């Protein structure tokens, strides 16, 4: 797979319209064998890839935390390069992408999500963007690395400056920026306009409502959805808002989860422990999650699946988008992230929290210490697992497994101790009650 010609072959496949026709046909014929939500996701991805690579619609590159409602609202296809780095890892081409970007002189210190997509461009594996929008709140690397794509594509590049705190004036300032950027894009990129914006917001609101049901269903014990699979669907959570396919995906997901709960069919039927997973995971093949599931440990929920923003008003779309960005709990004072993490810990009744420390990800790793202290104070075990989500060469599976297994042992021991303490207090209560009864008997005799 790592032969020199493979990327060229892949590039030809990606840019050929026939690929998408064949893929759609295959989904129509064999999609029945897939889980309905997987089918909905596959259909959404294939149709958008087809639009993007065959230039049927203008493509807008967006960094990971730009609300995609504005891209759908403009009538374009969103393309999140970081997300495609994750796909590249899953398809075994991330190493080529990373090598390529390093050969171009990008530092190894840059997060591999960025290094990989920069290299994928060198390998002609990215579609051509008509515009690029980035918001450096949370991820600063995106602003720098996506700029490089705008230079090579010669397309306009927009940076949304998200204020650190949420006030009335920051909402006004941010909505004005969003409005101006969208207006500018609609003027500069042929075929785009603002008339679909209301529809995109409506789609987003509908998907959000259904998704909240999904979240509610995921509170079930045992967990009805495997966390390692849910972490794959973070791509939809980051890139699908505003689309029709996300509604379909979440509708079918909610139905599947409902059925699983009714029929008691769970990915980890013998669930002993539940985890909350923060940040991302290795997207290449890794046995970390198999180990967890084999050991009866479910990932009950993930940070990147958490709905933090309120419903939006279609008529005041720019304001809605501004509020969505400003309410991101990863932005602003760290206390916001702590509150959100604590809400997830409580809602999903988890026994421990794992943060995957992606190499080079300052926004997440920077708060690790504060988070560790916060959770320790609350009595929740916390593990920071160093690794690389995209570059398999940058971490050791054996070391990660040892940490994870030790963490499971710590949680198990705590649970046993809590059970022991509970048993002891029950025994003490019974003994005391017996003692009282005997005293009473004695009194009556």
């Amino acid at each position, binding site marked *: 797979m790592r032969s020199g010609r493979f990327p060229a072959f892949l590039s030809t496949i990606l840019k050929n319209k026939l690929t998408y026709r064949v893929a759609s046909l295959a989904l129509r014929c064999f999609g029945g064998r897939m889980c309905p939500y997987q089918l909905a996701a596959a259909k959404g991805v294939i149709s958008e890839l087809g639009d993007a690579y065959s230039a049927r619609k203008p493509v807008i590159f967006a960094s990971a935390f730009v609300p995609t409602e504005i891209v759908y609202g403009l009538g374009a296809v969103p393309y999140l390069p970081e997300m495609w780095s994750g796909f590249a890892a899953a398809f075994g081409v991330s190493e080529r992408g990373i090598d390529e970007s390093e050969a171009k002189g990008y530092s190894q210190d840059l997060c591999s999500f960025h290094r990989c997509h920069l290299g994928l461009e060198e390998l002609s594996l990215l579609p051509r963007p008509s515009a690029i929008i980035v918001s450096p709140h949370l991820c600063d690397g995106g602003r720098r690395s996506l700029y490089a794509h705008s230079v090579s594509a010669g397309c306009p590049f927009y940076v949304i400056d998200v204020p650190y705190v949420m006030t009335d004036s920051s909402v006004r300032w941010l909505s004005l920026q969003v409005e101006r950027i969208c207006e500018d894009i609609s003027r500069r990129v042929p075929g785009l306009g603002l008339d679909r914006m209301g529809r995109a917001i409506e789609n987003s609101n509908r998907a959000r409502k259904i998704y909240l049901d999904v979240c509610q269903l995921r509170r079930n014990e045992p967990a009805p959805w495997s966390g390692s699979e849910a972490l794959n669907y973070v791509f939809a959570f980051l890139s699908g808002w505003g689309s029709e396919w996300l509604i379909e995906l979440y509708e079918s997901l909610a139905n599947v989860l409902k059925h699983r709960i009714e029929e008691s069919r769970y990915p980890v039927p013998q669930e002993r422990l539940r985890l909350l997973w923060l940040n991302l995971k290795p997207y290449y093949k890794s046995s970390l999650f198999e180990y967890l599931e084999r050991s009866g440990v479910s990932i009950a929920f993930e940070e990147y699946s958490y709905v933090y923003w309120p419903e939006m008003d279609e008529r005041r779309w720019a304001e809605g988008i501004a509020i969505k960005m400003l309410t991101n709990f990863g932005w602003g004072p760290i206390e916001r992230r702590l509150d959100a993490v604590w809400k997830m810990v409580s809602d999903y009744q988890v026994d421990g929290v794992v943060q995957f420390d992606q190499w080079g990800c300052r926004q997440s790793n920077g708060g690790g*210490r504060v988070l*560790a202290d916060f959770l*320790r104070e609350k009595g929740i*075990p916390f593990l920071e697992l*160093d690794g690389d989500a995209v570059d398999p060469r940058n*971490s*050791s599976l*054996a*070391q990660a497994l*040892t*940490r994870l*297994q*030790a963490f499971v*042992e*710590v949680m198990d*021991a*705590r649970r046993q*101790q809590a059970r022991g303490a509970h048993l002891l207090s029950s025994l003490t209560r019974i003994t005391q009650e017996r003692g009282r009864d005997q005293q009473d008997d004695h009194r009556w005799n």
Partner: protein
Amino acid sequence: MITVGIDSGSRATKVAVVSDGRILAAVKAETGREPALTASLCLDDALRNCGLSRQDVSSIITTGYGRDLIPGRKRSVTEITCHARGAFEIVPGAKTVIDIGGQDSKVIRLDGTGLVIDFVMNDKCAAGTGRFLEVMARRLELDLKDFESEWEDARDASKISSICTVFAESEVVSLISQGVPASSVVRGLCDAIASRIASMGRRVGIERPVVLTGGVSLNGGVRRSLERILGIEIIVPPMSVFMGAYGAALIASSS
């Protein structure tokens, strides 16, 4: 009940045969290329030393990087839990266990009743491990056993500024060529490793009593640097190298 703990580490394999909490025999050998074979040979050796056979063994628990490669185990448990279990048995009330092995180092925090409440391991690099010391000892043409006496002889400690094994090695070469005495370099190296472990330990909080285990526990230089940097006494229990295997055997007897 006779139980066995096998610690299949990256550098050395340790086997402990235990009965009623007492070590009957302990054997150590280089892990080499075939961890399962080495473990099996060590086990036979240990059993022979105490006049037992495999039939006498009720249960085997494995630990260490090769823990899942050893046949005949009841189950595998990580080094973190095993070192904590072993150290707590020998030093009741232990609150911190520092295990410095060939390839990694760990600081384990216990709650005073033997329960592990937190742990931290070195990152994916060789800095702060036994491997680091081995490379440096070779460069200095010294035996690791001589580190403590060199440490004592040192009038000062050379500053080793890099934590990377490769870079630190070139620093050592340059110090030797400048004529810096080997004892100062040894002390500098021990300080470097100790300050790395100390900063790791502060992440989980180091509390007395502190027990040092693993291969590097025998290196008196590192222990003395650790005591100096942390400002507390460090207990090196007997059989400290076998603590993981011993802990595994104790877990085998209670599960």
